[in-house]
């Protein structure tokens, strides 16, 4: 009997010889000639049998004339759809509050003060100390205080000189 060697890759020749015997398994006599005939028959059947998409298209094309929808009906439907969409867009508020912010959003309370009339009006100054009762003692501050980053002093000395 054939030795089934193990281990190194060179020991597979006997296995190769046994497996090679499967070459003798052959289809019945005349199979290959019949195969070609069968191939032709299937090809013809494929050509004659319509595909699924072709069937759907055919059904649809057959269905649409039966509906007898006037040509202008499609235009009317399109126009109505356009009008509705424009109306929806116009009704949509321009500034909507996102739902996530709606909890913390508070509606402003209406002012309770008396309506301003021309008689009650007083001159308004942009000066910060502009108080009609207290006249300024020192130099007036014309602009609100501003904050400037102090630039470091310019020096020619190396900052890390020891």
């Amino acid at each position, binding site marked *: 009997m054939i030795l089934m060697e193990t281990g190194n890759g060179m020991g597979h020749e006997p296995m190769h010889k046994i497996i090679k015997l499967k070459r003798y*398994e052959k289809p019945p006599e005349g199979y*290959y000639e019949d195969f070609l005939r069968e191939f032709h028959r299937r090809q013809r059947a494929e050509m004659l049998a319509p595909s699924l998409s072709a069937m759907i298209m055919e059904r649809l094309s057959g269905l649409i004339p039966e509906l007898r929808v006037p040509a202008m009906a499609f235009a009317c439907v399109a126009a109505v759809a356009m009008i509705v969409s424009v109306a929806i867009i116009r009704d949509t508020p321009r500034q909507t509050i996102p739902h996530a912010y709606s909890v913390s959003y508070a509606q402003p309370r209406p002012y309770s003060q008396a309506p301003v009339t021309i008689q009650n009006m007083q001159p308004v100054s942009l000066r910060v100390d502009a108080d009609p009762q207290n006249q300024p003692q020192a130099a007036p501050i014309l602009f609100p205080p501003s904050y400037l980053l102090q630039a470091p002093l310019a020096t020619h000395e190396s900052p890390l000189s020891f």
Partner: protein
Amino acid sequence: MSSDPAIPSSNDKELVARTQGGDPGAFDELILKYTPRLYGLVYHMTSNHEDTNDLLQDIFSKAYRSIVNFRGNSSFYTWMHSIAVNMTINFLKKRNRRQHPSLNDPDSNIENDPDFIAATSNGDPTKEVSIHELQKKLNASMQKLSHDHRIVVTMFDIQGIPHAEIAKILKISEGTVRSRLFYAHRQLQNSLHEFKRN
């Protein structure tokens, strides 16, 4: 194309060009030329004659539909085998566990093959193994292999396709082909342990 005898090397290019030009007779010639080889490939993968027949029809049908896109970057032989391998493996994945082997009878010439004689009798009639018993054993062992292993065993051991060509068909390296063969042989060896020299 390689000059290896396992690989048909004739006027494939011309036949392909004629088919692409609209000559169905040229494709018939290709079918007649490649059916025996591809039949072997699919049959040894499926172990079922009827499945092989249907699958082979689908393979040639797909090849016929796709041949207009064949640009000749590989040989027609490699292209055709790639289609067959991919469709066969997809088929086996779908078939899953539905296994009804329908094996062809071995050619009577097998009885004269020295490897068969050596494997089955060794001159001891009491230990003689029938052809069908050997066939059953071989088939069962082959079916235990994974698809990846079975395909390389089929192409190399049964069909005699060289490693380099198998690598091209499967789009893997030659090293991977050799490695898969090594492990497949080792697994087959365990399955066929009774066929040992005393």
